[in-house]
């Protein structure tokens, strides 16, 4: 189960309903935008091959999830083995900004990642194409407040994007890919310990622990 030939990076997009998770994914993967995206129920993913710096080919597997709270408890089925998590908010919706921390916490509880303290998260504020007057007042200050107080003072990369006008979407996902790759390499390292961790129980470790010192 270890030793995948291609590098597959699993990315989860989370955030409140209507912040534009599906639009971001569609814009990045298919370079298109529509007002007609259905509300997401459950979760599904799209994949895209990209080259990160250093010329390494990776496949991003991007999971789009439902925003409604009642579906949150089902996340445990999808979050497993994630390499990076994108926390989304809507720059016109203050509540979605304030909910970032709870999305992060919920993700950590359900995904059971090996390194919760330094698992890579990235923050995306979507819909910057809208009229300035509709945006959250003193956004930067509130955002700083959220990252420093609620998100544990960690310096997660922050991007402001427009999925509609394709602003900053590509750069954001390039960073996602880089962070996910780092996480994946971290997992691969150390005698596959983290890999076993992520792949859950495997009591017959005798054969595994000696293999793969590549």
């Amino acid at each position, binding site marked *: 189960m270890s030793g995948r030939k291609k590098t597959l990076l699993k990315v989860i997009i989370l955030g409140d309903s209507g912040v534009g998770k599906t639009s971001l994914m569609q814009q990045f993967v298919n370079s298109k935008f529509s007002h007609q995206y259905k*509300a997401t*129920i459950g979760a*599904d*993913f799209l994949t895209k091959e990209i080259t990160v710096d250093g010329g390494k080919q990776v496949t991003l597997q991007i999971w789009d999830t439902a925003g*409604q709270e009642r579906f949150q408890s089902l996340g445990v089925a999808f979050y497993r083995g994630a390499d990076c998590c994108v926390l989304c908010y809507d720059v016109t919706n203050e509540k979605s900004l304030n909910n970032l921390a709870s999305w992060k916490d919920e993700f950590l509880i359900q995904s059971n990642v090996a390194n919760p303290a330094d698992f890579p998260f990235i923050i995306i504020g979507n819909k910057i194409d809208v009229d300035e007057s509709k945006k959250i007042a003193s956004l930067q200050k509130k955002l700083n407040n959220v990252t420093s107080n609620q998100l544990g003072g960690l310096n997660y990369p922050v991007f402001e994007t427009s999925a509609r006008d394709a602003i900053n979407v590509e750069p954001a996902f390039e960073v996602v890919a880089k962070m996910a790759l780092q996480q994946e390499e971290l997992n691969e390292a150390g005698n596959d310990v983290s890999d076993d961790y992520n*792949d*859950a129980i*495997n009591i017959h*470790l005798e054969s595994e622990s000696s293999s793969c010192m590549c």
Partner: protein
Amino acid sequence: MFSIDTSNALSHSSHPDWVSMDIDKLGKSFYNSDEQPLSEPIRNLKAKTLEEAYSRNDIETLIEYSKSTDGLINNELRSKIWPVLLGIHSDFSENNTVPPSVSSSLSSSMTKSVDSTGLTSKLKLQSDKVSASFLLDDLDVVDLPPHKDEEQVKLDIQRSFTILSHIQSYHQLEGNNESYTAIFSKSDVDELKKKLSTLIIRILRKYPSLHYYQGFHDIASIVLIVCHDRDLNTIDEELAFNILEYFTIYHLRDFMIADISLSVNHLSLIPYILETVDHDLFELIKQTSNGFFLFNGTHFDYKFYQGLSSILTVFSHDLGSLQQILIIWDFMFSYNSVLTNIYVYVSALVYFKEDIFQYLNIPLDDEYCDYHEIDRDLVHTQISPTNLFKSTTDTDLLKILNIARSLIKKYPIDTLENSNETYSVWFEKFNPHSVLMTTSTVCWSGKEIRDKVSEYKYLLSDKETSSLDLAGWIQIQDEEICKQTIYTNEIEQEILREQEILASSASEYQSNDSGSISLSSSLSSLSSTSSAVNAKLISTSSILFKKLLFKPDDSKVEEGKPNGHLPLYLRNVYKISFTIGFIGFILHFLLSKNNRFHDAVSKMLTSSNAVVSIKHEVSTLGNLLSTEISNAVSGTFRYLAESDVVTHSVSIGQVGLGNLRNNVYGFNG
């Protein structure tokens, strides 16, 4: 007069002999027309026959034809016949006149709102300003406090009627002139959204105990489209409300309680049915499921989240063609049960099975298949609705429904393999108030529908008139599913515990370093399925467990040598535990091997000065023991005497070396 032609044509279309066909013989039918959608003349004949059956109140014919090819043909017929199949017209068979509207008694405030807006309100074709505030105009006529989920409704309304773009593509494909797009302009769609919002919010405000879910708006939009009169370009909103009300309360209730686990129960029926119906698909789903993996292949939890959107929206979220969605709805209403949707999903998997296995590169004829090699994410996609239904043709759907119909007949839900541990537990034992046990059971005749609907009619009435109203009912359902969750957790914790013991005994045989790492890693990954609290508990006890038990092996080897890197108290802990084991072993040996000793020992154990005697006895035998250990022994027994354990000394006799590990862990766990 035209009856001969009609009945011939229709007997083909409804395949009366079909249900008896074996599932394996599917696709080998003699009648080519059986496998094709109806031609236009036959459609017209069927419509005419349905119209006639409707006017002579022949519900059995309506039920039979709803199940057959192309269902109820058109929305005009649907808007008349769905209410009959839902049991809204409870006097349909006895009374010759069809009531124009049954709504008036349902809710006084609702009825007033209808009168003021008119039963059928004209869709305005001119552009109407639609903004976030558009709801308010309609809402003040719904004179009830807002529902907690209205914000979410608003968000979803903005993303509703995406199906209309599908209608466009459908009619382009069919080359059909009566394109919906000619009728639904952008402003019409906005008007529809407004009516959709009103419709959903009326339901939610009338029944505040319901919890809205994303996807309910898809359901409501289908109802609204069916109630649209094409010729007048109007919508019978009252009819839409009645249909949605009955459908929601009788059939979708399980999805609208507070806890989503009951919806998950419904989804679990998909692998449950497959277990009997299709072994390959069942194994594929089972062996690539997260649950199976986390339980290390010892336990399958029947979780099947992939079907979520299809089941919650009766396929309206996932199928690209409105016609196809409506035919599935006809099919469902003919049984008066949402259980049929589970069968339809199963049938789709069965129908597309070859494609799925081919895509995953799994040979179907192989006896043995190594599912570990399969990419589980790919399986997820393959059995998800987006992929499953991405290019379903009308013919595909016809065949899928044919399979579903025979499965429903041949494999009633409570008679399948392993139902004692699955279906009976999920529904009969824990959730007797579920729609599948009460208001949405499969019906085979008009009488069954009528009886069922009238039995639970009180769920629809106003609070004051009934002792157990919908709110009370939903509360019971939430309590029921909560009990099931606790039960399931206990079972799964038990499995995890067994596996931990297994895992730790496996790692004892390993070398020190890798052993301790793998122990902790397997224990922590075991905990991933349990809740946060349990996870904490397990990891804490695993650390304790490891400290207590893992090291003694080393200390045995290194006995006498200083063990500098360990704190003193730890050394004592395993000295004591080792000693207990040793003494226990000796006692056990004495008790079982020597009858003379047996009496003596049991006397000693029951006498009041047992501690002293044992100490004495032990020290005479103790030529074998170092002084250090004998000190520890006396310490141990002093401790035991103090804590009254010695009165249950028989159990001490049982503490052999082999049992020690389990017992110590048992105290901690």
